[in-house]
């Protein structure tokens, strides 16, 4: 009667391929398609310089989307990205303006501000049971208020520190932008956390069925709070990098990253209700969105046309493989 079989030892590579989410495969397929389309428009589209440039731009979104993915895996959402990104950037630049000590702590300080906001989100969601959509909206508004009051309504004048600029635009490895390296490191850490740590497995459990995770003795509140804190820190770090890229911060610099980060995570196969998704998919989603935006601007389509196509393409791609079960 018992035919219980132990898990056989299959070569790891083949096991991975077999488990490859069709959504992830579709995402990579779409990337190839876009590259093809772009190359039809202009030969330089497939040049390594251009592709690396795209990867660099994608890295900023990639860092932010990593945090968003953690939160979405939990079954929550983080709508405070716009102003956490901006806060990270502004605070880092502000610190950078305070001499050598300032320059040294600029980056950690910016990230810390993001972590703090993330903690507020996390405590609100986990301990006060406030729906994440609404608490992150509120913290976004508060962060905006704080930054507006801080800058007096003017554009921030502080410049980014040298370290920030180096991180965003320098090259440790010749011809490979630092930003891409940074994203790779963060991405690697994310993959490791999600698959090899109890924290990561707990995130999946909570996203799947929080009640069962709680009754299994998982500290669901702490895990949720930490995930939001991480998301805040990563968003702020994204802001720090962006400030390094532009050499300074700007009001509303984070607005352009909220919807793309959500779209990237979802297009990469992570289920919007949580519990399912792989980081590889998020990578694909980020690259996809970046390429899409890039193609649209290269083709010199007006902003109006770009928004229209942007929205239509996302829906189209989701219709192809992002559907729920009936």
């Amino acid at each position, binding site marked *: *009667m*018992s*035919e*219980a*079989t*132990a*898990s*056989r030892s299959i070569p790891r590579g083949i096991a991975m391929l077999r*488990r490859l989410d069709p959504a992830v495969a579709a995402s990579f397929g779409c990337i190839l398609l876009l590259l093809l389309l772009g190359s039809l428009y202009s030969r330089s589209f497939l040049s390594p310089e251009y592709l690396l440039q795209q990867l660099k731009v994608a890295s900023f979104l990639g860092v932010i989307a990593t945090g968003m993915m953690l939160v979405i895996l939990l079954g929550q959402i983080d709508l405070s990205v716009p102003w956490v990104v901006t806060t990270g950037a502004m605070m880092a630049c502000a610190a950078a303006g305070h001499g050598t000590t300032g320059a040294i702590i600029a980056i950690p300080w910016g990230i810390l501000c993001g972590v703090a906001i993330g903690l507020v989100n996390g405590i609100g969601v986990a301990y006060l049971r406030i729906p994440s959509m609404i608490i992150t909206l509120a913290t976004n508004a508060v962060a905006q208020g704080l930054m507006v009051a801080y800058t007096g309504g003017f554009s921030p004048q502080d410049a980014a520190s040298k370290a920030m600029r180096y991180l965003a635009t320098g090259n440790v490895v010749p011809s490979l932008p630092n930003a891409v390296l940074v994203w790779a490191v963060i991405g690697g850490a994310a993959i490791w956390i999600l698959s*090899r*740590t*109890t*924290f990561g*497995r*707990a995130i*999946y*459990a909570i996203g*799947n*069925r929080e*009640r*069962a*995770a*709680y*009754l*299994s*003795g*998982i*500290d669901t509140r702490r895990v949720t709070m930490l995930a939001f804190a991480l998301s805040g820190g990563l968003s702020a770090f994204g802001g720090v990098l962006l400030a390094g890229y532009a050499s300074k911060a700007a009001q509303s610099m984070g607005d352009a990253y909220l919807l793309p980060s959500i779209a990237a995570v979802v297009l990469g196969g992570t289920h919007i209700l949580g*519990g*399912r998704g792989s980081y590889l998919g998020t990578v694909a989603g980020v690259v996809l969105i970046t390429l899409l935006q890039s193609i649209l601007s290269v083709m010199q389509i007006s902003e109006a046309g770009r928004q229209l196509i942007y929205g239509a393409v996302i829906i189209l791609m989701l219709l192809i493989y992002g559907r729920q079960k009936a």
Partner: protein
Amino acid sequence: MIAAEPLFRAERLSKRYGGVVALDRADLEVHPGRIHAILGENGAGKSTLIKLMVGVVAPDEGRMTLEGREVAFARPAAATDAGVVCIFQELSLIPDLSVADNIMISHPPTRLGMIDRRAQRRLAEEALARAGAGDIHPRALVKDLPLSRRQMVEIAKALSRQPKILILDEATSALTASDVTKVFEVLKRLRAEGLALLYISHRMHEIAELADECTVFRNGRRISTFAAGSKTDPEVIELMIGREYKHVFPDKPERKADGRSPALQCRSLTWNDRLKDISFSLHAGEIIGLGGLDGQGQRELLLALFGVLRGCRGDILIDGDKVQIESPVTAKSERVGLALIPEDRKTEGLMLPMSVRDNLSAAAFDRFARFGVIDRQRQSALIDEMIRLIEIKTASADLAVSALSGGNQQKVVIAKWLMNKPRIILLNDPTRGIDVGTKQEIYRLLRRLADDGAAILLYSTDYDELIGCCDRVLVMYDGAIRRELSGAEITERALVSSALNVHDSEPASVP
């Protein structure tokens, strides 16, 4: 009973889910004015047959005829309109709507395109009265009602559709004893009025009281149809499990007092007004049962011990030391060593889309992780061992747990906790809705665990289980322990009378 032309006939119905055959050329005849009981283990095909009959899914092969005409239902609404109505276990009630809205959800009286609230309320009150639930206020929100009241609303709702065939799928499992009596009266009256009833239940004594004829399903096929009462219970169970049916329960060992402090001791545990001054002791090697009618505080007691309830007063002692259990995290810790197999495996015990491996690991990360990092090899080794030990039938540890049968799912829940090597195991009605074969395995497992030194507290709604498994039974009534029965004292008569808080002539032994 001469077979008149059947009201409903299913012929050679088949349904496959992927590679699994759920129903294999099954056939069934339903006659008006008769109560037809359907028995079978989980996975025998009963629920699939019902789903086909009410239009939730469509058959791969075969056909159904209603009143001589062939029918095929595309949606549950179509089946209901045709007169085939099913009473589920509260699956079809809308929590945020009122009782009246729920009863008349699919066919409300309208005026000028809007719902006529007054007429609706009148119709709802009539339906409730007909179902014997006239005490339920039509404006009450369903989510504010206890489970037994919700079940009665479900019954009222079904009756309001003027069904030709009424199907009850484990519909009485949540009801209090007095509700069950009322419902049975209603069902018998409906039978006399000519309604055809299909009754699915695991409770033999209910079937004995109600049914005119019984059909046994096994492995997706109809095995036998016979008049009720013409076979003994063991014979019926043999038909259901397909092999000789002997000992259900493993032997209970002789208990020897060994002077050690009890594994778990409760002193004056009180919570809200649902738990009143509960005191008892549980020793290692013992299986203690919680008995009594549904909803007398048994579930709350288990939750309180596991740290889920806030504001408990009183003491809990583990191995003689007082402990404060604030959450399941504390409860499962090494120091306390508790485990809880919860009430609903689908929403509380398992993360259904996740793999067997992930589910088994959920409570026991500390066994194979250091500083939060998982040791994959150690994890696989422990999981493989557990799958073998508990005999969980699954093709691989990476299969999603939702693909397993109900019995195997429950085994995963139990195994998940055994990974943690708990000292005290709390079980909340663990064999409800589980097939007979798996039930036996679980009973054997529990006794083995007790022999190895675990202390087990088992809440069950099944008298046979309490009698067969437990060394002692604590019968609860209205949040307090009314009576403790030991050994030979545990009889069905004693259980029933103490559950109803009736004082028997036998002397009670108060803990």
